[in-house]
């Protein structure tokens, strides 16, 4: 079993090192006199990083593409909002949101994971829309007029920033740990061939349910932090299909199943979002759609795959021979095999 316990570490070591290096300036961000608008952008980016990494565990590592993560995001946002308005400590509120979403993920997962990949993906579209409609019509969510968080005390952007940073780090650590654990190997086995994995003693249903719960928890935490930061949420926003799409896109753009990919995808997404939404409100989805098409057609490994390919090309050109240990390209999983 020792061989199983030590998966190829080469693919994980580099991104972890990069992350550690990137962390130091990130810790100092609120104190170097950056305009608060930039800090806000970084904060939002960090929350996207957290969600992108969370989705990637289910969609990238385990190969179960879900179009329904807005459900968890929304559950996290609303649970945290209710709890904070009820006078509960915000961090406890985030955790409570995570737990509610975990429960939700199990309730959704038990029926839907009986379906294989593509049918699971379609079912999640249905789940997402059904939940959104129900939530929009419930009295308790504030319906179409939304729900406002009652904020007491001074607004501290630093605190919000560190919350977001903490969540991104948590997602990163969990992802890193899962990817190099036997559980991560089991998930990959399920992605590659569910039946073969089952023959080798992996319980696909249990694995999927577990990773779904983990992803949901992390997504909901970010949703809670987002709700607290914006102080206003409404069901058609947090439960919207567009939110689900964005969470999925960040991972796919960056590179499915990798650790660095979702981080890069989320950063690119947030920056593009920031620039596009102001100037061309409708075009950002057009851009993402085009990007998605290009990625599927030409570089299934996403931006990370593209970078690797370029690096490999450069190495060949500089040294004149195919460079050292080539890192396996992570292709889009064949769902349902």
């Amino acid at each position: 079993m020792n061989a199983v316990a030590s998966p190829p570490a080469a693919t994980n070591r580099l991104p972890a090192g990069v992350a550690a290096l990137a962390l130091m300036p990130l810790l100092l961000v609120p104190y170097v006199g950056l305009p608060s608008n930039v800090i806000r952008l970084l904060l939002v980016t960090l929350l996207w990083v957290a969600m992108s990494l969370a989705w990637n565990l289910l969609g990238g590592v385990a190969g179960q593409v879900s179009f329904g993560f807005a459900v968890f995001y929304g559950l996290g946002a609303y649970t945290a909002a209710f709890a904070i308005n009820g006078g509960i400590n915000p961090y406890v509120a985030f955790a409570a949101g995570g737990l509610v979403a975990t429960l939700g993920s199990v309730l959704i997962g038990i029926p839907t994971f009986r379906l294989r990949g593509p049918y699971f993906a379609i079912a999640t579209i249905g789940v997402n829309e059904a939940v959104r409609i129900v939530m929009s019509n419930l009295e308790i969510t504030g319906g179409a007029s939304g729900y406002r968080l009652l904020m007491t005390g001074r607004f501290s952007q630093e605190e919000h920033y560190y919350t977001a940073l903490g969540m991104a780090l948590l997602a990163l650590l969990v992802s890193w740990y899962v990817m190099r654990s036997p559980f991560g190997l089991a998930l990959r086995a399920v992605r590659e061939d569910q039946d073969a994995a089952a023959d080798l003693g992996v319980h696909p249903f249990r694995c999927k349910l577990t990773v779904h719960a983990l992803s949901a928890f992390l997504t909901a935490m970010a949703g809670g932090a987002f709700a607290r930061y914006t102080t206003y949420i409404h069901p058609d926003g947090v439960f919207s299909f567009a939110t689900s799409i964005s969470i999925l896109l960040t991972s796919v753009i960056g590179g499915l199943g990798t650790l660095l990919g979702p981080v890069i995808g989320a950063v690119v997404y947030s920056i593009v979002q920031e620039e596009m939404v102001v100037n061309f409100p409708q075009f950002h989805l057009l851009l993402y759609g085009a990007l998605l098409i290009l990625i599927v057609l030409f570089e299934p490994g996403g931006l990370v795959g593209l970078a690797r390919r370029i690096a490999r090309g450069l190495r060949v050109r500089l040294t004149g021979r195919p460079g050292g240990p080539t890192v396996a390209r992570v292709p889009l999983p064949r769902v349902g095999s």
Partner: protein
Amino acid sequence: MGLADLLNLLASAVLLAGIYTTMSIGMTVIYGVMKMVNLAHAGFMMLGAYFAYEVSQRTPIDPLLAAVLAAPLFFLLGIATYGSMVRRVPVADVPTLPSLLLLFGLWLVLQNIGYAIWGADDRSILTPLTMATFRFAGITIPIIRLIVFGIALFSLVSLHVLLTRTWFGRAVRALTQNREAGQLVGIDTQQMAMLTFGLGIAFTGLAGALLATLYSFTPDFGGSFMLRSFVIIVLGGLESFAGVAIGAVIVALIETFSILVVPASYQLAISFILLVVALLVLPGGIEGLLQRRRLVQ
């Protein structure tokens, strides 16, 4: 509720089922031959709707005629889409993730091109017939729905003839049943996939244009209809052409009669819950269920 009300609801459910069948059959044909779930379905429906709108605005052509004209045009559009993009993604006996993501990306692109061209305003197509009704034995039927039903029915009969009386149809049915065996007997799968995708998109565009004469639309149009199509083809057993009609009737009946029990704002949620339930408990659709019964007996 009186008998007349019941008959009225029943009539409108049947008329709805007709257009729902046309709408879903495009998805079934593509799924059957290529094993791809067309997530760009909504995008092509939206284009169909705006095609009918533009034609009826700019020319004296009647929107219903424009809808019929949409079919050949969208056939070509489907072929172009296939040739430029869909051809390049892997196919297997089950939908592959790249195909799902590609078509989903295409939906995003189409939808937002729609927003870029037509903006987010609600549009609707008014024809001289929009307000006209037809009364028969206590049942009131809007004439436009009757005509849309007629066109839908005609398109389905044409498809049936195509599938049962031509070599193309025979090849489509063969590939739907068993892709590899189809290849073994010499069917050119690439060419068939191209024609099938064109055919599927033709039906999708036609359905979008027809629905545009009944409902108002924005570039977001089609999303909820696409989900209904999923429900219908899942109920129908995914690759059965007759099953689609059964699925459409069931969805139309449930939607029409659920008004009596469920508040209108929850209407759509019913379709979506039905989708999940259908996927779970009816893996072979209604037909599969009937067949299983037969096997047991």
